C-alpha cells in the first residue's frame, strides 16, 4: 500500500498496570515550588497560632530591632513585624488565589465559549478579549481602585477583571483545535449535550494550560496587589505584605535603618512569587517534552 503513515506504537504491550506516573513528583523544581507553596498555605492557615501578638496593636516600643521578644523587631508604629508578616500571609495569599481563580475562571469561560461556539459569539468574545489584552492593566487597576476605593473583595474583582485576557486567548486557540478532535466529534454524534461535551471532553484536555494560566494569574495578582498596597490604593488598614511595605515606606524604614521592617515582606512576596513561577516553569517542561530532552548532539 502506498501510504506509509503507520504508527509505531511505543506501548504495544497491553498488560501495563499502573496509572501513568505523575511527572510532577519527579521534577525537582516542581517539588521545590510545591513545597514552598504548601509552606505558605500552612502559615496562612495556622497563622493565628504562630502569630505572637495582635498584628495591628500599636503597643510596643517603636522601631526595635529583632530580639527574642520580637523576632523581626517592631515597626515605627510599635507593631510586631513577625505577627504582621504571618497575618499578612493570609491576605496576600487569599488575594493571589482568589483573583487568580476568578481570572482563570473568566478566561476558561470566554476561551471555551469562543472556541466551541464559533461564529458571531466567537467574534464578539474575541474582540472583547483583544480589547482587554491591549488596554494596559496596571494603570487601569490603579485608576479603578483610586475611583472605587475598594476593600479586599473589590481588589480581587478588579485584578481578575483586568487580567483574564491572556489566558482566554490561549485557551480559545486550544479549544479551537480540541473541538475538531475526533473524540469531540464523536461525543456530539453520540448525542451528548453541549455542557457534557465541554466538561467531559474538552476541559479535561486543557488542564495543563488552565493550571499554567492559573499560576500566571496568581503571580500577576500577587504583584498587582502588592503594588496597589504600596501606592496606598489598597485596603491599607488590612495587614498584608503590600500594606506592610506601604507603612514601612511611609515611615522611611530603609533610611532609618529599619531593614527588619522593609525586607521581610518583600522577601515573602518574592519567595511566594518564585514558588509559583518555579512550578509554572516545570509545568512547561512537563507538558512540552521538547523542553525536557537534552540536546541530541
Amino acid at each position: 500500500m502506498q501510504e506509509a503513515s503507520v504508527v509505531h506504537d511505543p506501548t504495544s504491550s497491553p498488560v501495563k498496570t499502573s496509572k501513568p506516573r505523575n511527572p510532577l513528583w519527579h521534577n525537582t523544581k516542581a517539588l521545590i515550588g510545591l513545597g514552598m507553596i504548601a509552606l505558605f498555605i500552612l502559615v496562612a492557615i495556622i497563622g493565628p497560632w504562630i502569630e505572637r501578638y495582635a498584628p495591628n496593636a500599636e503597643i510596643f516600643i517603636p522601631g526595635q530591632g529583632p530580639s527574642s521578644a520580637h523576632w523581626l523587631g517592631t515597626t515605627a508604629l510599635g507593631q510586631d513585624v513577625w505577627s504582621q508578616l504571618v497575618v499578612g500571609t493570609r491576605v496576600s495569599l487569599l488575594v493571589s488565589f482568589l483573583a487568580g481563580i476568578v481570572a482563570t475562571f473568566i478566561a476558561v469561560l470566554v476561551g471555551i465559549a469562543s472556541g466551541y461556539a464559533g461564529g458571531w459569539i466567537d467574534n464578539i468574545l474575541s474582540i472583547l478579549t483583544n480589547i482587554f489584552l491591549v488596554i494596559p492593566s496596571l494603570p487601569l487597576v490603579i485608576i479603578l481602585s483610586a475611583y472605587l476605593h475598594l476593600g479586599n473583595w473589590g481588589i480581587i474583582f478588579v485584578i481578575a477583571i483586568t487580567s483574564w485576557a491572556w489566558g482566554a486567548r490561549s485557551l480559545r486557540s486550544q479549544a479551537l483545535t480540541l473541538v475538531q478532535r475526533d473524540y469531540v466529534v464523536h461525543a456530539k454524534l453520540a448525542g451528548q449535550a453541549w455542557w457534557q461535551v465541554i466538561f467531559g471532553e474538552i476541559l479535561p484536555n486543557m488542564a495543563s494550560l488552565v493550571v499554567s494560566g492559573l499560576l500566571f494569574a496568581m503571580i500577576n495578582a500577587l504583584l498587582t496587589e502588592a503594588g496597589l498596597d504600596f501606592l496606598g490604593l489598597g485596603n491599607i488598614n488590612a495587614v498584608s505584605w503590600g500594606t506592610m511595605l506601604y507603612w514601612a515606606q511611609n515611615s522611611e524604614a530603609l533610611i532609618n535603618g529599619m531593614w527588619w521592617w522593609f525586607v521581610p515582606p518583600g522577601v515573602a512576596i518574592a519567595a511566594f512569587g518564585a514558588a509559583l513561577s518555579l512550578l509554572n516553569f516545570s509545568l512547561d517542561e512537563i507538558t512540552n517534552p521538547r523542553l525536557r530532552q537534552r540536546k541530541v548532539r
Partner: protein
Amino acid sequence: MTPTEPLIQMVDVDKTFRQGHRVTRVLRGMNLSINPGEIVALVGESGSGKSTVAQTLVRLYEPDHGQLVYAGSDVSHIRGGELKEFRRHIQMLFQDPFASLNPTQTVRTILLRSFPKESKTSGQKALEQHLRDTLAEVDLSPPDNFLSKYPHELSGGQRQRVAFARALGVRPQLMIADEPVSMLDVSLRLGLLNLMQELNHSQGLAYLYITHDLASARYVASRILVMYAGQVVESGSADAVVNRPQHPYTQLLVAAAPDPEQRGKRDESVTINGEPPDLSQEIRGCPFQFRCPLVFDPCLTVNPAMVEVGENQWARCHLFDQRQKTVVRG
C-alpha cells in the same frame, strides 16, 4: 421501512465551503444510497470529497442543495432533538486511533459516556455486563484488562477496537468508517476488517467504508463507489468494479493497486499522472479531462452523465455516451 427501501440516501447533494473569497465546491451532485445491512465502499483519492460525504451523512454539515433521506424521510435540515435522534442510528469510526479517544478518560468512561441514557437506568450490574459484552464484541478480552486503561496504554489496534466498541454502544444501524485501518500496522488491518464483516453478519450492521485502497474495498464491500472531484464516477458490485473497471480513472486505480495474487508487486508502468483539479475553480467539462489518457473533444465542454455500462455497473464518461443508456443514480 420496507425491506427494499434504502437505509440512507444522498440525492444530488451539493456542498460548498466559503473561506473569505475562496469558494470551494466540494460535492457537486453527489448521489449515494445504502441499503440496510449492506457494506458499501467509497473509494477515492484524498481531496475527492469522501470525508465530506461522511460528515454530511451524519449531518455535521447541512447539504447546500439536494437531499439527505433517512428511512424515507428528509433529514437534510433537521435540528435539535430530531437531529439527536437521527444521529443515534449512524455512528462514525475515525481514521486516527490516537485522536479519536479522549486521552483523559479510561476505557470504561469512554464506553459509558457513549451508551444511550436508557441503558444507564437498567442498574449497575446490567451496565457492567453491557460494558463487557461490548468489549467482547470487538474482541477485546478479557474485558477487565482493558476497562481501567487509558488510551495511551493501548496499542493502535486496541484503540481502534475501543473506538469501534464506543460506536457500537449506541446500537447504530449504519457505521461510517472513514479510513479506519489506514493508520494501523499492516498486520492489524485484516483483523479489524474481519471484525467489521463479523458484525455485519451477526447484527446486520450496514457500513459505508471509506478508503483510498481499492483492494481493501473489494475485501469487505459488496458494492463500490469510485469518487472523483466531488461526484461518483463509477459504481457497481465490488467484483465488477475491480475486475472490469470501465471509467478510465477506475482503470488507472486498479492498475496502480498491488495485485492481490502477487503480493507486494505492482505494475510500475502505470501511474496516475497529475493532481486532482482545484475545486475552488469553475470546471468546464469532465473533471477528469486533465489527467485522462483517453481524453477527446466532448470531455472539454460537457460533464458526462452517469450511464449503465454493464450489469449493475454505471460510469460517468463520454466514452459510453453513444450507447445512450438510461441515466440512473448511483
